[in-house]
């Protein structure tokens, strides 16, 4: 391997069709020694083998302090001088707990093993000496050439060599990787496409002897860097040339690929990290209680031992029947032995079976959540799901609910309602979507209805080609996107990663600009019936940081155009100077925001040929660079291109509220939960949505940044906050005033906040007195920052709910993350602890399941501690009556079977089935504060 390769990080070498070369280097492992580079294509998600099960499971279980404690007890009991109860008495509960836990792990491991072997034995076609043979997945080796058929799952990470489609395109579905169900295309290199597409292709493929140099295996699903050295040339490889394991080939008869990464090296397996273990607060309280129990056992044993010393001294001085029994005639030594005896005797106070019972109860509670019919969403056939089974009781203690807006409060079923082209507003959002008169679009053969905008003037303008800005605007809508078109019964069906794009492309289709198809290099659009083919030069991706995307195309006339669409702030700052219609457009933006519409600005730029040539060269250079450097360079490059834009117009999309959202928010607020909404939308839009979903009361006063800042800067924020309210609401009752203030912040203001960390505490104490907080224009990272702020300054449980990839940060940061199984892919759900389908299901999740679970578990813990402590404390009392001699009052077997057998059922039944009251009053009339009812039991626990 050359030095150069090392420097660029391309150190993974794959030789096509040389199985022996790679087999030789395959990774072999024996115990903890591994040798070789390439892993085989066998999935091993199981942990245990016949030999390792016992040591591993014991190792895992003895990481629990309670288990170690009991093991120590068993050891102590083996010392005859101090053993107050026989050794087998403590080992029985310990063994029961260890074996139950071990069997549970074993069973789940067996399930994994079965699942693995099912995956490993899936068939696939491997090229062996110029013909394809059916082999199993586990036999696939790095360097093999595979043939994937339609609808087959791809068995390893492949370099696409060629496919049955023109240009060697192929389509994949990545639902199992990121949950997105839209098709994505992958394309082979021109070189391999031209050389290897022949009939029959086996011969050409068999002779293929390229060498792939690429990155070491990593978990970045969306980037790939490498080069193919073949026939003396070097081709750069990108993500679009790669088929990832776990994706499904669609709409393509055959695809041929060269295996690059197998088994544990594949991107998806590198990605499935371990599940985070979230510990609930109750568990932490409980751990403290356990420590307290241990300490008090030690203390009690110490006192009793002193008693024993004193009493044996007395016995010694008398001539009594007992005096000969004092060991060595030494009361102090006697007391020392009794100390250990009492530690053993009082050890049943330590709730050994509690952890395992706790787990069982959590699992059952999670199942109840999944089984609940009232949280089942018929339309998508999705029940609620508790992905993290150990958090159910936290649901009952949520103090702060931080919600995303789009797709969470709203349906994310987007309707194109209005647009503003060249300063002119078309459509009327005041008419509700159902009442919009359908326009006559019969002239357009591709129209399939569904446009909720009535604006004949726009259609006339467009058909008459009277306004070049309007035509450009629609061209931009039809070109600037990443939508795939699938043809079904003569109509294009659009598949988009983002619902916004789908709506915009759909709207363009209705208005006569029909996106027909896309290849790697071309986008075909029918403009009012005339089919035009645009050459796609570059696609500047959308990221949540950039908040815009652009395409650079060469139109059939040969002109270079950059179409850009994105968030208004981003676009407006990139316009050319003195851009026409800017003011009128900004007014339109405000109008749209007031009508709760989502806006996107569309702009265009004519790119000079010289600039493009220079730019494309730099872009080509960047491909060979290391990832992090390249990212910064790309950002700079993109920024260079997206400048001097000419504003075309604004689209306004309506996103309607989900069913039951206002009621749910009102109910949660009544239950004492603070609801915060964090959204990327504009302030006006967010505030309007806030009013319509009852987050903001119509009479409530909005406290904005300027004022808030003054309050925070003042010496005593509480006082000035109060003053600020009283000046406005002097007439109303103080308490009322308190409840009716809401804070509205924007992202840039939050950024200022981060610079002044000392404001955090006072801000939170103010926010606690406000009805709600609304943060607009926040980035995903800021969302997580806000969650952190709340977590840091309050003791409450925070819950985040969101549906999109931009909410993942916040979902992961909060105590409890809820993913809404919506239309924006499955990323949020994959990272969440709970998944529901509708926002209003939170009512039931929090106020019914959460409450029940919290109450049951609180009761359960108290009951459990009561029964174990009660059982052990008898011995302290009895100690006073038997001369502090560590004599057990019970028959020994009774001690052994008490916790794990005799008293296991009632406490479990109560933890499963106890219902504080029926569900009805809880969802229709929650008490003002949930904690009021629950605190006593927790307090009791702390005592």
């Amino acid at each position: 391997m050359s030095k150069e390769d090392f420097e660029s990080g391309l150190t993974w070498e794959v030789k096509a069709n040389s199985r022996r070369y790679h087999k030789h280097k395959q990774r072999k492992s024996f115990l903890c020694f591994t040798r070789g580079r390439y892993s085989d294509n066998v999935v091993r998600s199981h942990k245990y083998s016949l030999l390792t099960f016992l040591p591993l499971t014991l190792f895992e279980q003895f990481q629990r302090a309670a288990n170690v404690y009991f093991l120590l007890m068993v050891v102590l009991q083996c010392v005859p001088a101090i053993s107050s109860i026989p050794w087998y008495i403590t080992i029985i509960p310990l063994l029961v707990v260890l074996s139950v836990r071990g069997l549970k792990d074993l069973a789940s491991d067996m399930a994994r093993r079965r699942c693995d072997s099912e995956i490993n034995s899936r068939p696939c076609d491997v090229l062996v000496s110029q013909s394809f043979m059916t082999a199993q997945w586990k036999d696939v080796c790095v360097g093999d050439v595979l043939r994937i058929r339609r609808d087959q799952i791809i068995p390893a990470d492949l370099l696409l060599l060629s496919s049955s489609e023109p240009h060697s395109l192929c389509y994949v579905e990545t639902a199992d990787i990121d949950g997105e169900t839209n098709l994505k295309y992958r394309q082979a290199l021109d070189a391999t496409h031209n050389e290897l597409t022949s009939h029959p292709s086996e011969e050409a493929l068999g002779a293929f002897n390229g060498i792939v140099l690429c990155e070491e295996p990593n978990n970045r699903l969306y980037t790939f860097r490498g080069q193919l050295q073949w026939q003396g040339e070097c081709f750069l490889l990108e993500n679009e040339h790669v088929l990832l394991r776990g994706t499904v080939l669609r709409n393509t008869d055959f695809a041929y690929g060269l295996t690059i990464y197998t088994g544990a090296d594949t991107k998806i397996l590198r990605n499935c990290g371990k599940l985070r273990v979230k510990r609930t607060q109750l568990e932490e309280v409980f751990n403290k209680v356990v420590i307290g129990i241990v300490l008090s056992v030690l203390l009690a044993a110490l006192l009793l031992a002193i008693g024993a010393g004193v009493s044996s001294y007395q016995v010694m001085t008398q001539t009594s029947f007992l005096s000969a029994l004092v060991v060595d005639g030494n009361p102090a030594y006697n007391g020392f032995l009794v100390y250990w005896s009492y530690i053993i005797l009082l050890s049943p106070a330590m709730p050994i079976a509690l952890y395992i019972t706790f787990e069982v109860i959590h699992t059952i509670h999670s199942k109840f959540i999944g089984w609940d019919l009232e949280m089942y969403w018929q339309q998508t056939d999705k029940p609620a799901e508790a992905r993290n089974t150990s958090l159910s009781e936290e649901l009952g203690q949520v103090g702060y609910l931080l919600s995303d807006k789009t797709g969470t409060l709203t349906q994310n079923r987007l309707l194109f309602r209005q647009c503003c082209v060249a300063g002119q507003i078309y459509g009327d959002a005041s008419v509700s979507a159902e009442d919009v008169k359908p326009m006559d679009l019969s002239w357009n053969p591709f129209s399939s209805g569904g446009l909720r905008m009535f604006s004949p003037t726009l259609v006339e303008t467009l058909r008459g080609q009277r306004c070049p800005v309007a035509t450009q605007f629609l061209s931009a809508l039809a070109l600037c996107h990443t939508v795939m078109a699938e043809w079904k019964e003569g109509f294009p069906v659009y598949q988009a990663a983002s619902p916004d794009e789908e709506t915009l492309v759909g709207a363009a289709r209705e208005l006569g600009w029909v996106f027909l198809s896309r290849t790697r290099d071309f986008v075909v659009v029918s403009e009012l019936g005339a089919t035009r083919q645009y050459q796609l030069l570059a696609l500047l991706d959308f990221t949540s940081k950039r908040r815009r995307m652009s395409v650079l195309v060469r139109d059939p006339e040969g002109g270079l155009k950059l179409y850009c669409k994105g968030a208004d702030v981003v676009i407006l700052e990139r316009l050319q100077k003195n851009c026409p219609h800017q003011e009128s457009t900004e007014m339109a933006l405000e109008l749209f925001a007031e009508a709760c519409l989502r806006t996107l600005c569309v702009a265009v730029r004519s790119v000079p040929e010289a600039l493009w040539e220079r730019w494309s060269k730099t872009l080509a250079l960047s491909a060979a660079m290391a990832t992090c450097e390249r990212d910064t360079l790309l950002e700079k490059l993109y920024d260079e291109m997206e400048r001097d834009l000419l504003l075309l117009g604004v689209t306004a999309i309506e996103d309607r509220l989900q069913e039951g959202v206002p009621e749910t928010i009102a109910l949660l607020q009544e239950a004492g939960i603070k609801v915060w909404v964090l959204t990327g939308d504009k302030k006006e839009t967010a505030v309007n949505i806030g009013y319509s979903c009852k987050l903001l009361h119509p009479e409530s006063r909005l406290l904005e940044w300027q004022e808030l800042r003054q309050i925070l800067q003042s010496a005593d924020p509480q006082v000035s906050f109060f003053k600020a309210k009283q000046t406005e609401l002097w007439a109303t009752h103080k308490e009322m005033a308190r409840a009716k203030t809401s804070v509205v912040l924007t992202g840039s203001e939050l950024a200022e906040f981060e610079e002044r960390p000392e404001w955090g505490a006072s801000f939170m104490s103010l926010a606690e007195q406000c009805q709600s907080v609304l943060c607009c224009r926040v980035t995903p990272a800021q969302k997580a920052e806000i969650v952190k702020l709340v977590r840091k300054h309050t003791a409450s449980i925070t819950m985040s709910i969101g549906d999109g990839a931009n909410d993942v940060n916040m979902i992961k940061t909060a105590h409890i993350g809820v993913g809404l199984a919506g239309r924006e892919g499955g990323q949020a759900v994959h990272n969440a602890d709970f998944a529901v389908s509708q926002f209003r299901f939170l009512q039931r999740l929090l106020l019914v399941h959460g409450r029940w679970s919290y109450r049951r578990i609180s009761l359960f813990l108290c009951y459990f501690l009561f029964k174990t402590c009660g059982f052990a404390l008898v011995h302290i009392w009895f100690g006073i009556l038997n001369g502090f001699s560590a004599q057990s009052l019970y028959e020994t077997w009774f001690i052994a079977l008490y916790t794990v057998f005799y008293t296991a059922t009632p406490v479990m039944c109560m933890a499963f089935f106890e219902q504080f009251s029926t569900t009805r009053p809880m969802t229709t009339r929650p008490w003002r504060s949930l904690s009021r009812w629950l605190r006593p039991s927790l307090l009791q626990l702390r005592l």
Partner: protein
Amino acid sequence: MMASSYNAKEEDGHHSGSSTHGGTGAPKNKKPDNTAFKQQRLPAWQPILTAGTVLPAFFIIGLMFIPIGIGLYVTSNNIKEYEVDYTGVEPNSPCYDCANSFTWNSTTPCVCTVNFTLTQPFESNVYMYYGLSNFYQNHRRYVKSRDDSQLNGVQSSLISPSKECEPYRTNPETKQPIAPCGAIANSLFNDTLELYYSQPDGNTSKVTLVKKGIAWYTDKHVKFRNPGNDKDNLTERFKGTAKPVNWMKPVYELDPSDPENNGFINEDFIVWMRTAALPTFRKLYRIIQKKPDSTPTLASGKYFLKITYNYPVRSFDGRKRMILSTISWMGGKNPFLGIAYITVGSICFFLGVVLLIIHHKYDTRSNSADIPN
């Protein structure tokens, strides 16, 4: 089943596309079952406390518990019990001399006599107990100091008793194993109690005390057995063993009157070996059988108790008592249960009355089923 499919999903998590894409089967409906269990609609009972339910509950409890308590109390009171403390602590008590002049190696037993009067006749079977106070029979080292297999007649344990018996395992001088070994056996209660009735005509008659049937059946027949062959002489069977240090006689001579009541199956010994849970306890000593005719078992009048004073308790401030008692269906005399029932019943009744008054005076609502939140 819903449960199993849920589980599988949980377990394999997000691995490597394990979901069944491209499968042919029709998609399974994930709608949860509408069963009472899964929807948490199992029949439940939630008591709502209203005046209408609470008041009758109080009255019913009160009215039920008071008669039960009275019944128990009366039953307990009908049990006759008489207790004599013969420790001999006070200088004027008859056993004062015996208690003070006690020495372990005295050969002549010290005898004292305590007089007492029964004011009421004792009917039916009368049980005679000895009671000890401040005697820690529940001390762990004491409780452990025995060898159950030796007592069960196992020959090997007879020869080499368990280590638990230390320091009463072997005789320090002869090095012979002690039978029965251990501290419990060593401290066997060995006072002899005899009861005399001084008849109104001036004669005294000895009251017949039955020493059989005072031990548990299982103890006598299962747990305790003499070692060796039944045909052999008991002395023969215990050959090679030493008597416990404090004993005057070896174990096979405990009861000179009845050869069947000797060795480990001596009933007094068995009763002693069942250790008491508390430091103040009584143990059954003898039974006075009911007379066939209608005369009371123990007529009222003067009695005297003749004690052969062998057992020292003064050194650890212990007390010794003799108790005579009849029993009823609920066992010995125990007024506590009856008093507890009467107290709880009275409190409930009283509370019921108070609550009724409050309810009548202050309840202004027409419907009392609601409780204010």
